[in-house]
């Protein structure tokens, strides 16, 4: 095993353990080790990337983790094209978030704890992408869940934060439920959990069925959908999206890390990694495409009306992740991973920009109290603008290339739901541009709406915060350059690079179609930006008139379609009722305990009444004896 590959995950692990144990004593200096560790990992990741580019792959076991009977799973690393890209995304974003946190978390209680958790998060995600088998993926998967639990609930004394952390973990467990069953089915089909033999022999499950409780299932569909359950949890797709918007209870750098690099991308990565299995099942692909499309629209409509700046960005993540699933669903895995890559930079930038604004506004997150911040925070302003342009898909920016690729692939795809996904995707492209610029304009333009005290304190964030913003802005602008489509003079490097792992897209549109589609989606984006400008700059009364004209729709969107309330009503409340009233009070106490305590009581009563027979009167005893003798004689006679 090459050393640089070991360094990538294990240095952050060491940094976690060391900082967690001794960080308290290091006080304000506790960030040095985590930053050094993640930067070293980043350098090694770059090195690994170039190794892969030169055709060097690694698939090696460290040691056998679990072996029982014929089952054996190792801890081992796989370095291929997909891994190398993920390594870059994770370590680069993580490095910048680490550095940014030095400024953002300054003076907070538990400063060292925060940095140690960041290292743990990085380690977990790196183990997830580096594993050469499903069980190690699951290790990273759950470890990522743990890290998010710790970081979302970082301000644990706040009940809402503790709730949000717990919610993230438990909602993800619902997804894991499907995921782990998927692993069992894979094991039952292939007799191993290691990628290489599974993907090499994947054709053997094609056309196979299995019987489950009398029903017959198409094996690839079953495996793919069970794995997708896990992906829905981690990547916050409907109906398991509810944890992600709440996750903003964590400190803002954590949101950036979760939304951009370390957690939500895991689901997309899983689907991309397992593409040979998904490709076998048209049904599964259709379902993924539809789930992606619905989530995409659903989240975007919520983002339209939210007033908490982090919440808007959070829902935009759900919506953007849905694009990635649409890509996977239509069989264009490399387009999905491409969007994952570009999204990581502009989304991290948006979140860190929000963090910078929140710092400037003294922990105010309501857009209602902002406005006109442009002149106070110029660097934040410009970088935020670039990120907004990128997410809106303005030509030339990173988001444009990846989103257009997805829409083109969806349109051309043989997967039935492809056209539907294209339509939704284009619609949402317009909505995305609208809500992004709505947010942008409300924050930076117009008059300042906060208190005078807030106004007096407004100033640009320190360099340790702004430099990561600038670096991310470079990514948000330029990350698309790796995959410029052929039709506008590029050479589609991205797809070629990932081809050995992700294969070709199922179908390509013709160049003419691609150009037309591009024009349509760009116009949708432009219209969104124009509308945002019209509604929030030109004609600030418009939003209110619209919301008053359609109060139902407005309320639905503002209250996030009441999904949390519905879950509370359908799952949480019934479970607690079942627990308290049915199982505990009825079964356990009223039935089982009554029987258990009843038997001794019954015996006690019985012996009490028997005792009365022994009253010491000889005549009574004589009578019992005679009665008994007569009974025995009769019995013997009858039997004979």
């Amino acid at each position: 095993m090459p050393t640089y590959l070991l360094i990538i995950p294990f240095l952050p692990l060491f940094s976690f353990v060391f900082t967690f144990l001794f960080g308290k004593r290091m006080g304000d200096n506790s960030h040095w080790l985590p930053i050094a560790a993640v930067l070293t990992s980043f350098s090694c990741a770059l090195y690994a990337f170039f190794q892969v580019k030169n055709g060097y792959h690694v698939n090696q076991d460290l040691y056998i983790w679990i072996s029982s009977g014929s089952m054996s799973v190792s801890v081992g690393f796989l370095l291929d094209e997909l891994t190398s890209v993920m390594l870059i995304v994770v370590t680069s974003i993580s490095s910048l978030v680490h550095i940014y946190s030095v400024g953002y978390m300054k003076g907070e209680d538990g400063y060292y704890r925060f940095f140690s958790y960041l290292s743990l998060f990085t380690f977990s995600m790196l183990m997830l992408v580096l594993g050469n088998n499903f069980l190690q993926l699951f290790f990273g998967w759950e470890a990522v869940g743990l890290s998010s639990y710790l970081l979302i609930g970082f301000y644990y004394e706040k009940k809402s934060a503790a709730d949000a952390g717990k919610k993230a973990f438990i909602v993800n467990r619902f997804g894991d439920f499907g995921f782990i069953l998927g692993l069992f089915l894979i094991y039952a089909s292939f007799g191993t959990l290691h990628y290489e033999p599974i993907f090499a022999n994947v054709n053997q499950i094609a056309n196979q069925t299995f019987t489950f409780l009398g029903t017959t299932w198409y094996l690839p569909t079953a495996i793919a959908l069970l794995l997708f359950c896990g992906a829905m949890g981690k990547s916050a797709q409907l109906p398991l999206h509810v944890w992600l918007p709440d996750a903003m209870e964590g400190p803002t750098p954590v949101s950036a890390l979760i939304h951009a690099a370390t957690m939500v991308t895991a689901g997309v990565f899983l689907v991309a990694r397992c593409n040979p299995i998904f490709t076998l099942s048209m049904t599964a692909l259709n379902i993924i495409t539809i789930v992606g499309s619905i989530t995409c629209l659903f989240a975007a409509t919520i983002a339209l009306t939210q007033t908490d700046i982090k919440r808007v960005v959070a829902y935009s993540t759900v919506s953007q992740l849905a694009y990635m699933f649409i890509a996977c669903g239509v069989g264009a895995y490399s387009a999905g991973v491409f969007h994952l890559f570009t999204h990581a930079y502009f989304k991290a930038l948006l979140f860190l920009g929000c963090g910078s604004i929140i710092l400037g506004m003294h922990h105010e997150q309501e857009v209602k109290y902002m406005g006109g911040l442009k002149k106070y925070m110029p660097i934040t302003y410009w970088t935020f603008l670039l990120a907004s342009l990128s997410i809106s898909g303005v030509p030339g920016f990173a988001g444009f290339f990846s989103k257009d690729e997805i829409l083109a692939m969806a349109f051309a795809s043989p997967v039935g739901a492809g056209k539907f996904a294209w339509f939704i995707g284009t619609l949402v492209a317009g909505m995305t541009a609208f809500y992004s610029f709505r947010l942008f304009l409300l924050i930076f333009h117009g008059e300042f709406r906060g208190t005078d005290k807030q106004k007096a304190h407004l100033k640009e964030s320190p360099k340790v915060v702004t430099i990561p913003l600038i670096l991310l802005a470079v990514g948000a602008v330029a990350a698309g350059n790796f995959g410029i489509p052929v039709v506008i003079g590029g050479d589609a490097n991205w797809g070629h690079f990932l081809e050995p792992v992700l294969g070709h897209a199922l179908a390509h549109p013709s160049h003419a179609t691609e150009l037309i589609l591009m024009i349509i989606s760009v116009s949708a984006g432009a219209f969104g930006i124009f509308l945002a400008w019209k509604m929030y700059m030109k004609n600030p009364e418009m939003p209110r008139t619209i919301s008053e004209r359609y109060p139902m729709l407005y309320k639905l969107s503002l209250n996030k379609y009441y999904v949390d309330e519905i879950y509370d009503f359908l799952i949480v409340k019934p479970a607690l009722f079942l627990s308290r009233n049915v199982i505990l009070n009825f079964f356990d106490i009223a039935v089982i305990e009554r029987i258990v305590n009843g038997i001794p009581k019954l015996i006690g009563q019985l012996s009490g009444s028997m005792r009365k027979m022994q009253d010491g009167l000889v005549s009574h005893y004589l009578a019992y004896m005679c009665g008994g003798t007569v009974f025995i004689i009769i019995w013997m006679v009858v039997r004979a």
Partner: protein
Amino acid sequence: MSFPILSLLIFLPVFGGIALLGISKENIKNVKVMALIISLFELVCTLPLLFAFDKTTHAMQFVERHDWIKLFNIEYYLGIDGISILFIPLSALITILCILVSWNSIQTKVREFFIAMLLLEGAMIGVFCSVDFFLFYIFWEAMLIPMFLLIGVWGGPNRIYAATKFFLYTLVGSLLMLVGIITLYIKGGNTFDILVLAEQNFPVKTQLILFWAFFAAFAVKVPMWPVHTWLPDAHTEAPAAGSVVLAGILIKMGAYGFLRFSMPILPEATSMMMMPMLVLSLIGIVYGGIICLAQTDLKRLIAYSSVSHMGFVTLGIFALNTQSVEGGILQMINHGVVTGALFLGIGMVYERTHTRKISDYGGLATNMPIFASFFLLFTLASVGLPGTNGFIGEFLILLGSFMTRPWVALIAASGLIIGAWYMLWLYQRIFFNPVNSKWDAIKELDMREIMTLMPMVILIFWIGLFPNTILDYMHVSVSHLLSQVTGNPEGIASGVQLAVNHALETANQGVQHVQQISH
């Protein structure tokens, strides 16, 4: 004749306990130190077992065999195999931790308390070493007495009720087992040697009756649903050490009984009763988990969570294949470690707060960060986070039962969700949320307490990351057991009706990705 190490292990704590009587009652310090030394020495003595154990045979090792009551062919017959060996060091370790956690919390009849602990240890190890069924029964019942005293004398306010309930529940079960043992003796050729008994073919009808007679004893001990209701009472009223040893070792005896007696001696009955046992286990998992959501008492919650976790253990044992049974045995150890650790932690915090009500807590992480970290780790191990020991056991059990009956694994896996829900909710209510000002002056763990918890931390990670070092001990014994029960050393191979059975053998095409449909 080799060195009688098993006898040493059984009688060292017994005589050590009796020797404590030699120390004056007032000299509490010496009593404690002496008890600690004895228990430490005991642990050291168990280590040679681990090193000298031959992992390549299922035969009993370190055997000691002497005639005892010749009239009934009762022998003093000791030996261990891959199924029992691991519980001996675990018992020794748990006893040490129990002694440490009771250091200051036991204030009355201190000397007697430590004597009871040591006697209990001897009896527990005796149970795991017995190869003679009658001898086993003696140790089995002998365990009951010190445990009864631990709850009844040093327990909480409602201790008499709890102790009596515990005693009667287990006694009723044990008596049925005794009848079963005598039946076996008569029908099996006048012997109590379980190795000989396992060789015989009892008629199926006899096997079924005996199976349920043993079930009465073992299911109560596990405890399986619906005979679990003694456990919450016993746990809540027992002192910390009592809860720890109960969760750590005592309730493992039931599952051990199934493995050691029911399965090899009554193989046909075991196969026939597989389904009912799986269903009872599933009910235990789900019922025990859901009921935790309604608990307001810290110890009761963990007690019910034991019902759920032990449901996983019996599920694994009765799913009858290599992964599930090995997972089941491993999960017995894991549950001992993790739930033992949770009860140790609860004991430490109870010593400070004197309340078990969950709602009395809140924000403890602020004033006890070290304790919060320990408890978080135990919580995570309890919910089966990969990297901790809990995951390995649950994974193997679920995988194995999936191979036997997929729907069983489907239902059991829901335990993963419920488990995370109640454990994290519990953790939140104790350690997170706004700080309850009542505990502003609460003391962080001291060195003794940290040292008490450390062994558990090491075991959690050790088993979580290197489970093979533990699983290696059981492979041969488990496959022998499975061939006794099912006739196949791998057990029940696959209930998943897949057409792909030997996919990998027929395939030989190297890494090559599916050619996708091109346009």
